[in-house]
C-alpha cells in the first residue's frame, strides 16, 4: 500500500494484527487531514508548548520540525537499535539457508532474510532524518556502543528453530511493533507500517514450518517441541524488563513514541500464543500457565530477567560470534563499496570532461 492512498479491498485481512496495522495507516491519513490547523509556531511561541500540543492532538512530528533534544536522542537510540536488530537478525536464519530441507523452503527463507535487510534499511533511513549519518550508525553498531535485540544472541540449532523464530520471535516483534505504527514521529511510523506488513508473512511462514513438523514423524514433532522449549522464555524477554524496572518507558509514553507498557505487550503476546500452540499440538514450557477468569488473561511464569541482563551485557551464547561476523562482513565488503565509489567518481570525471 505504499504508494496508494487507500487500502485495496482485497487486502483486508479480516482483523488481527494486520488489521491493526491497516487501522494505524488509516489513522495516519486521518491525522494528516486534520493537520491544517497546525501551522508553524509563530516566532515568539513557546516551542515546548507547541510541540506538546502537536503530540496531544495525535499529529505527527516531521524531520524538520522543532523537537526537544531528548526526544530526538530517544528516537535515534530506539530506531537505531531496531535497525541494528534487523541486520544482526539475518544471521541466525542465514545459518539455515544452505540447509533448508527443500528448494521451496530455501527460496522462502532467502526472501525472508532479504526482507530483514530491507527493514534495517528503512529504519536506518528513518533514523537519518533525525540528523545522524548512516556511517555513524554503522560505526555505533560495530564498536558495540549501540545494542541490538538480545534475542539474536541465541543459537539456531535445528531447522525447527527457523520455524520458532518466525512464530515466536517475529510474533513478539509484531506485538511490539504494531503500536509503533502510531508513533508520534512520522518517518518511524511510516517505516513501521511497511515493516509490520512484511513481518506478518514471516510469522505465518514460521508457523507453517512448525505445523508441518508437529504433524510429521515423532522425531520431527520432538524437534519442534524442543525448539519451542528453548525459545519461549527468551521470546518473553524480548518485551524488556518488567514495568517497574523499565528506565525509558514513562517519558516515551508521554511522547507517544511508546503506546503500551512492556508488561501489557508481554501479556498480549502470551494470550495470543496459547491458542496458537494448541492448534500446533505443541506445549508451551510453563506449568503455571493457566487462564485467570478475574483478569481475563493468562497467568504465566516470567522470563529470567537476570539472564536477559547478562545477554544484553554481552554474555549470551552468541554475542561474540554475531559481532565478529558483522565486523568481518563489513570489512570483507569494503572492496565492493570502494569499487562502486571509484566507478561513480570515474563517471563523474568523464561527465566533467565532456562538459568542459
Amino acid at each position, binding site marked *: 500500500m*505504499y*504508494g*496508494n492512498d487507500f487500502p485495496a479491498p482485497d487486502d483486508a485481512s479480516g482483523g488481527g494484527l494486520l488489521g491493526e496495522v491497516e487501522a494505524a495507516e488509516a489513522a495516519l491519513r486521518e491525522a494528516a487531514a486534520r493537520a491544517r490547523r497546525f*501551522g*508553524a509556531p*509563530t516566532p515568539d511561541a513557546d516551542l515546548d508548548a507547541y510541540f506538546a500540543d502537536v503530540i496531544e492532538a495525535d499529529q505527527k512530528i*516531521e524531520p*524538520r*520540525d*522543532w523537537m526537544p533534544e531528548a526526544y530526538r536522542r530517544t528516537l535515534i537510540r530506539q530506531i537505531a537499535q531496531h535497525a541494528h536488530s534487523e541486520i544482526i537478525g539475518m544471521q541466525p536464519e542465514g545459518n539455515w539457508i544452505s540447509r533448508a530441507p527443500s528448494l521451496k523452503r530455501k527460496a522462502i527463507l532467502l*526472501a525472508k532474510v*532479504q*526482507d530483514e535487510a*530491507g527493514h534495517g*534499511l*528503512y529504519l536506518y*533511513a528513518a533514523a*537519518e532524518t533525525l540528523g545522524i*549519518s*548512516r*556511517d555513524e550508525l*554503522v*560505526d555505533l553498531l*560495530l564498536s558495540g556502543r549501540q545494542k541490538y535485540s538480545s534475542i539474536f544472541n541465541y543459537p539456531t540449532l535445528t531447522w525447527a528453530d527457523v520455524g520458532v523464530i518466525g512464530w515466536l520471535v517475529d510474533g513478539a516483534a509484531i506485538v511490539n511493533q504494531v503500536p509503533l505504527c502510531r508513533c508520534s514521529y512520522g518517518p518511524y511510523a*511510516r*517505516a513501521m507500517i511497511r515493516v509490520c506488513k*512484511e513481518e506478518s508473512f514471516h510469522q505465518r511462514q514460521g508457523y507453517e514450518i512448525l505445523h508441518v513438523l508437529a504433524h510429521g514423524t515423532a522425531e520431527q514433532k520432538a524437534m519442534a517441541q524442543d525448539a519451542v522449549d528453548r525459545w519461549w522464555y527468551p521470546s518473553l524477554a524480548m518485551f524488556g524488563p518488567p514495568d517497574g524496572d523499565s528506565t525509558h518507558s514513562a517519558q516515551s509514553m508521554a511522547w507517544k513514541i511508546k503506546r503500551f507498557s512492556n508488561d501489557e505487550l508481554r501479556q498480549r503476546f502470551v494470550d495470543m500464543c496459547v491458542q496458537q500452540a494448541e492448534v500446533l499440538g505443541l506445549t508451551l514450557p510453563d506449568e503455571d500457565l493457566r487462564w485467570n477468569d478475574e483478569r481475563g488473561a493468562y497467568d504465566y511464569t516470567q522470563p529470567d530477567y537476570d539472564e536477559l541482563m547478562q545477554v544484553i551485557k554481552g554474555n549470551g551464547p552468541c554475542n561474540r560470534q554475531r559481532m565478529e561476523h558483522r565486523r568481518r562482513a563489513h*570489512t570483507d565488503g*569494503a572492496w565492493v*563499496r*570502494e569499487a*562502486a*565509489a*571509484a*566507478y*561513480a*567518481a570515474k*563517471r563523474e570525471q568523464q561527465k566533467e570532461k565532456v562538459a568542459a
Partner: protein
Amino acid sequence: MSERTERGEGREGMPGQHRVSTEQHTPLWEVFVRARRGLSHTHVGSLHAPDAELALRNARDVYTRRQEGVSIWVVPAAAITASSPDEKDAFFDPAADKVYRHPTFYEVPEGAGHL
C-alpha cells in the same frame, strides 16, 4: 568510519589515483514510486548509493520487493530545495485569505443545476 578513512589516506599521493572516500561518494537518494497506472509517483523513503544507476537498482530491491510499483524515480536528496517549516506561516500566507478560490465560497441560486 575510521577504518575506511585510513584506507583512503593510504592511497593519497599515488599517481593517477583519486582518494576514495565511501561517505563522500555514497550520497543519499530520495525514492518515489508509482504504485499503479493512474497514480502519481509518491515518496516512499530514501537510500544510499554511489550513482543513479545503482540507486535505481537498490530502490527496486528495497522498496518494490512485492510489486509495489510500476515505475521508480530516484532523486539526489541534495538536489531537493525545500521550504523551511520555520517560515511556514509566512510562506503559505498568501493562500490563507483567498477563500474565493474554493467553489464552496459561492452561493448557488435555488434551481440552478449542473454547477
